[in-house]
């Protein structure tokens, strides 16, 4: 890999006696679409939380766009260009959709040393339009359906103008058609140059999306490579079938 945007090495995290992550190493290239899969409890969420600074890793190092991230808080990482969507959408309930998207525009996209947003209101409309929520710009999140909530979550993540987007199970619980909607959205973002790490259970979506697939089992990286090869690997099949 000539030009890695994100490098994870020797990452480890324990909760009490429980080892959530052990010696995880990973590289993501600029512009890549990476899929991250693994059974429940395999450490995917912990990995996302360690990358984004929500949880402090005990061991190892995360390097993003040339910056060492250890010790940086979550908002500092967002400002460096790493955004996430939450597995369970966490909108700001008392703010309108437009205001929800405006928060990261004001606090992450529009800070010193980064590409300044010339007109926050216009950018707000643009982002809501991109996910098809512009007509509801002045509504509150409580009025949204499940899929609209996911779309708001993505729009808000994109509002910080990230170089890397971590989409944490952005499609769980959605219908076939809705999954395709979100998938198209993510492909479109990637085409604009955003590197995307997708954590997902829906195999069809992961395989359609990913250029490369990483499998996490019991806190360790089990496989990393071409998606079609990885899912035929015997130990991956075994981990998924639970034998």
């Amino acid at each position: 890999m000539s030009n890695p945007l994100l490098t994870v090495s020797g990452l480890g995290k324990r909760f009490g006696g429980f080892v959530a992550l052990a010696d995880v190493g990973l590289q993501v290239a600029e512009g890549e679409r990476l899929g991250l899969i693994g059974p429940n409890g395999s450490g995917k969420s912990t990995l996302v939380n360690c990358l984004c600074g929500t949880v402090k890793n005990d061991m190892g190092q995360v390097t993003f766009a040339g910056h060492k991230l250890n010790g940086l808080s979550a908002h500092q990482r967002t400002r460096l260009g790493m955004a996430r969507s939450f597995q369970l959408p966490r909108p700001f309930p008392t703010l309108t959709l437009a205001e929800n998207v405006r928060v990261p525009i004001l606090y992450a996209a529009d800070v010193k040393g980064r590409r300044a947003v010339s007109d926050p209101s216009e950018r707000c409309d643009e982002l809501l339009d991109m996910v098809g929520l512009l007509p509801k710009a002045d509504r509150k999140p409580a009025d949204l359906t499940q899929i609209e909530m996911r779309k708001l979550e993505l729009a808000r993540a994109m509002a910080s103008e990230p170089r890397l987007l971590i989409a944490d199970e952005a499609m769980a619980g959605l219908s076939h058609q809705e999954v395709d909607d979100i998938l198209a959205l993510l492909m479109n973002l990637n085409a604009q140059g955003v590197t995307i790490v997708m954590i997902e259970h829906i195999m069809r979506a992961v395989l359609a999306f990913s250029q490369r697939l990483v499998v996490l089992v019991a806190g360790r990286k089990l496989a990393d490579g071409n998606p079609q090869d990885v899912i035929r690997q015997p130990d991956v099949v075994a981990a998924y079938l639970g034998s």
Partner: protein
Amino acid sequence: MRNVRFILLALAVAAVTLAVARLIDNAYVFFAGYVVLQYIVLATAWNILGGYTGYVNFGTAAFFAVGAYTTVVLHKTVPLMPLPGMMLAGGVISGVIGLGMGYLTLRLRGTFFSIATLAMAVVAQTLITNWYFVGGSRGAYIIRPSDSPIFSGDYIQYLFAIMLLLSVISVSIARAIQHSRLGYGFSAIRDDELAAEASGVPTLRLKLIATALSGGLMGMAGAPLPYYVTYLDPASGFSLSYAVNTIAMPLIGGTATWLGPVIGAVLLGTLQQVATVTISSALSLLIVGLLLVSFVIAAPKGIVGWFKR
């Protein structure tokens, strides 16, 4: 631009208020009005932290009394210092205390912050009670000058005018924040701190700003108190009724906007002034407590909420 217009408008309202009060020319109007204005400042200050960021401060009395006792100290050491200087000093000290408290407890869940503020009020009172320089438990006497230093009239008119100006300042700050980048950050913190961090909001720094600003304004509101009461003891300076009123007023008026605390303070403050004279001060406090509980149960958005949607 909108802010400048608002400040000019608020100053005009304040000037009219002062002119009308001077026309009525009754000392009681100034004494009662001063208390209502003081509560506008306290409720607005509380709301910057409590309403905007969602961190409940039970320690209003402590910040307020620290401001008041700063004046007692300055009155004894630098008697010639003008009152606005003392207010500034009280504000700075209270703000720094807010900053320190916040630094220690704001990393934790909001309830721990609230509990710590409650306990802090008790400790600040203990410290003052044991500090003989400011009168200890026996209290301190301050001689109120007889005339206003800047315009013709009684000193109480001067106190009234100063508190009026401080209300304009506090309300203008609260309103400016509400429509600013800072205001969006505060709302994001109140709604979901984790999501706020993920959106690039430096939550700890913003919470510290809110705590220091809120505490500082409370200290400034407390600084003229010794001249108003002329006798200050820890029991009255740290009275729980300050904390209750300051929480009740924004919650009754509505916490989401700058207007809520002002409405709450004017209504509840006036009601209490009337009830204290006509019924009794204990009963008027009981009314405040009952109103607080009924509003949080039945009208979560306060009076302002009735007029929206």
